[in-house]
């Protein structure tokens, strides 16, 4: 499935410009080390963390996008670093649980 498709189907709000690419799945966690260990390249990462280290982790793991859940807004420097690192930053009013459910269902449909 493509990132543009994920953005459209989940009704996500892009916080900055982004580059469409293939999405390999998702990972939902707020613990950075957990994300570093278990996230995969091309994943969409769902988190409530909204500080600049989120962009660093997303860039290291080559994630397709970061989704700030629960309607959280990024701290100013997160936006800035995300732009610099080319990290796609999105937001949603959905909770992590709801967004993960929708993403999972979409992926099942796309794979099936």
């Amino acid at each position, binding site marked *: 499935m493509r990132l543009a498709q994920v953005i459209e189907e989940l009704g996500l709000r892009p916080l900055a410009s982004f580059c469409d690419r293939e999405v390999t799945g998702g990972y939902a966690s707020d613990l*950075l*080390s957990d994300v*570093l*260990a278990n996230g*995969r*390249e091309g994943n969409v990462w769902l988190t409530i963390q909204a500080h600049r*280290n989120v962009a660093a982790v997303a860039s290291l793991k*080559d994630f397709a996008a970061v989704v700030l859940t629960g309607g959280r807004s990024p701290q100013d420097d997160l936006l800035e670093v995300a732009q610099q690192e080319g990290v796609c930053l999105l937001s949603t009013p959905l909770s992590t649980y709801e967004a993960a459910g929708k993403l999972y269902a979409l992926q099942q449909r796309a794979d099936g």
Partner: protein
Amino acid sequence: MSVIGAANGFSVAHELVYTLKVRDAMQKDLVTVTPGTTLREVQGLLREHRISGTPVLENDLLVGIVSLEDIINALDHGHIEESVGRWMTREVVTIQENMPLRRAVEFFQRYQYGRLPVVDAEGRLCGILTQADIVVRLMLELNRMAEEAARRETELLAQAGAATTSGPAVTMEFSVNAGDFDNAGIASARIKSALQERGVDLKVARRAAIATYEAETNIIIHSIGGSVKAQIDADRITIEAADWGPGIEDVERALRPGFSTASELVRAMGFGAGMGLPNIQKCADRFRIESTPGTGTRLHVEIDFDSTTSDGGE
């Protein structure tokens, strides 16, 4: 409105509308009605499928098209309960599926229709095409081409890098300050790109970056300050993270997944999961940690460029 206006020179998009066929862009899941369907039913279908018109079929033959405009007129003039057959547009402009998309673009420019029914060589309806379908197809195609170009570039870089991997060793050093979360990730990002520039496998570069990131954040969270050094040789990268204290009381316990001494504040930021050292260990081909309480901690990590160790995320 036109999808692609008058050409200012010859662009990739223009080339694509010549090479792509109508069938490459059309929607194949069709909603159709028959002349006997009532306009009221059509109204429901259009709303349900969020479309603005639908072809009318009789015995598998295309006999007309009914659009949102017909529905609005029907509501206006009070014939919404009547059948489609009486009010549909019978003069339907169709396009063949094997035509280049360029032809469809011309059709949309010439006629003011929102959608074109697509037919096969025998004249049977096989799809429907809107201007939005063309835009989506072009975007996907452009994106595919951009990815292909990026992939080729990476290959070329890797080839160029392979020649220099055996070049002189490179050393890098970064100082890391206690509590300086704002600069976490700088050393790891630089090391990752240095490795990529040398043509080192992306997975290996990523493991080195993750190990460095965890080492950086450890110094930021737990120490009074320190440094990260990296040496890139022909066949491996060596990362040395050292701090000036206070040192780890029980190293064995610190290596246990889930164990952390991080403060509540740090944990609230998503650090201190007790996975830092275990993550580093998982990424490393060789791993050594020395710590003396009161003096400091020294971490030594080596990652081979041809190694098969996984970071668990691959």
